[in-house]
């Protein structure tokens, strides 16, 4: 009998504890939710209230990840040409962000030049500081603006140093003979390239796209500077706060170089460095950038 009561009591106690736990958990969750809501109102936009923001340039090739010297598993463009990639690097500059309310912040120019190098994962982030806020749009330049392209030598430091990364045959991005920077450098190999003067006379079947030109110092030249606008509303706005690292994750699809609105065949244009065709390729750049998500 007592034994029965004990069991009953135990059951009651167990149920009570279970309920209590559930209630406690529920309450805690409520409190926590309330807390997180309370600590995350959109901060007032103040130019001096800076917090970290990064923009990640995640290079991809169509439906595949970017791999260098992928001779065992070639990429294929819309024209059916197979190719491998040996170099990809480009300048990102003049980063600007705009909040839901329409407040725009331009990152200080001196901290706004980034060289994204495909073979060095550490360079894929452009890390800047912007005021705390909720940002719905991102703007940046692919290339180096004309003002900075004509700056005195003292201002050309870091990635803009003409000595950086060796000569322009290698990873260097400064063009000496026609003073300025290469904005976008994309090289690789394709079996479709001929061995004559219209292709690669060295027989290495290399393609080279070095796209630059900022409009000229005094006489006007081609202007291949491209301003890229990214709407963040669909894939996730950037909530920039001091205690967090908001990261706007972009996919950069280099396949669009070939398959963009000015699509072309490697066999017809294996080398584009300076000529009117650079403008055709530069017109494909905007299509390369796609906002995948934002990590807040």
């Amino acid at each position, binding site marked *: 009998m007592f034994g029965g009561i004990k069991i009953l009591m135990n059951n009651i106690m167990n149920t009570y504890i279970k309920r209590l736990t559930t209630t406690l958990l529920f309450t805690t969750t409520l409190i926590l939710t309330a807390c997180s809501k309370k600590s995350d109102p959109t901060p007032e936009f103040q130019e001096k209230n800076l917090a970290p923001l990064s923009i990640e340039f995640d290079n991809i090739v169509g439906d595949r990840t970017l791999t260098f010297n992928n001779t065992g598993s070639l990429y294929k463009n819309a024209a059916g040409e197979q190719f491998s990639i040996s170099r990809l690097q480009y300048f990102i500059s003049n980063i600007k962000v705009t909040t839901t309310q329409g407040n725009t912040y331009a990152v200080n120019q001196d901290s706004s030049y980034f060289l994204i190098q495909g073979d060095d994962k550490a360079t894929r982030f452009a890390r800047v500081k912007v005021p705390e806020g909720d940002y719905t749009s991102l703007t940046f330049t692919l290339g180096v603006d004309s003002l900075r392209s004509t700056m005195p030598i003292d201002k050309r430091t870091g990635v803009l140093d003409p000595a950086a990364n060796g000569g322009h045959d290698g990873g260097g991005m400064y063009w000496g*003979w026609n003073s300025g920077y290469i904005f976008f450098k994309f090289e690789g190999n394709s079996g479709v390239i001929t061995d004559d003067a219209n292709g690669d006379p060295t027989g290495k079947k290399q393609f080279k796209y070095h796209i630059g030109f900022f409009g000229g110092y005094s006489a006007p030249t081609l202007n291949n500077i491209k301003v890229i606008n990214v709407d963040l509303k669909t894939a996730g706005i950037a909530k920039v706060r001091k205690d967090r690292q908001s990261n706007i994750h972009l996919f950069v699809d280099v396949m669009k170089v070939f398959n963009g609105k000015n699509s072309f065949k490697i066999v017809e244009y294996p080398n584009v460095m300076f000529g009117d065709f650079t403008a055709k390729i530069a017109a494909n750049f905007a299509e390369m950038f796609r906002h995948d998500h934002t990590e807040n």
Partner: protein
Amino acid sequence: MNKKHWIVFSILGLFILACKKDIPIKEEIEKFLGFQKPINFPEPEYKFANNPVTKAGFELGRALFYEPRLSRNNTITCGSCHIQSSAFTQHGHDVSHGIEDRLGTRNSPPIMNLAWSKAFMWGGGVYDLDLQPIVPITTHEEMDENLDNVLKKIKAVPKYTAMFKSAFGTEEVTTARFMKALSQFMLMCVSSNSKYDKVMRKEAGVTFTADEQEGYTLFKQKCASCHSEPLFTDGSFRNNGLGISAINDQGFYAATLISTDKYKFKVPSLRNLQYTAPYMHDGRFLSLAGVLEHYNSEVQQTPNLDPLLKQANRLGIALTQNDQVKLTAFLVTLNDPDFINNTLLSEQ
């Protein structure tokens, strides 16, 4: 006073004389005047405020100008193709002769009065003296090196450590310091002591001869619209009617891609012609006579020919034999022996 005393005195006297001679020379060397604008020249284009010429900076620039480490295999210096005795050109070479006997496509231009230059190279493309040396350093047919390597090599040489320190305050070797030092040397390559300059500055006792004066008058009528005084170039790019070369060098067009720039080249200065033959962007004329005859009878109607070379339906500029003699007499007055003999600008 005996014989011994005389000997001692004589020797002392010799020392004193020797010392006396030394003192003014030393003072002259120590008194570095920096960049001086000749009074008959306009204001320079170069922004000196950003890179004032100092003795230490100039000396560093001079050492770098004559430094073979600027080339890939440490064989060629800037001075190899810009020889002072040829007014800093490569005398006797139609096109520049670079590393491993490679030949370029253009005639090595003089390093002269660059402080007044708005654009560099025969075909433009470079508009800041501080960025110009990157071109010959990196060009395959010239020094075939890259800037990064040059700086690494320079950093490893002890003498440069001290030179960078005295020129810029610390031992750090940066691109900007390297380029600025080279600029300081090149800016000091001012040629302004020709007979012409002395006549213009009304220096005592210097006047044109009758032939030179006639030549000057002809020059002002027929040449000065492009080769404007006192630099004897207006710095513009023009097509002077040369036959198109076998390699079809399109000049300024290669830098601008504007079709109206095809076959235009920078108007060269006429100073120091005696030392700078051969002439034109590809060094095709070996003598001044060849150049004058080109303007007289060989100008060709190629795209973008300068309108000044086709007036009243006549190609070129009519120059009689007599005109050519007088013009030549005047052009000789533009030679500046002080410039090519200035030891300050020589390899030390």
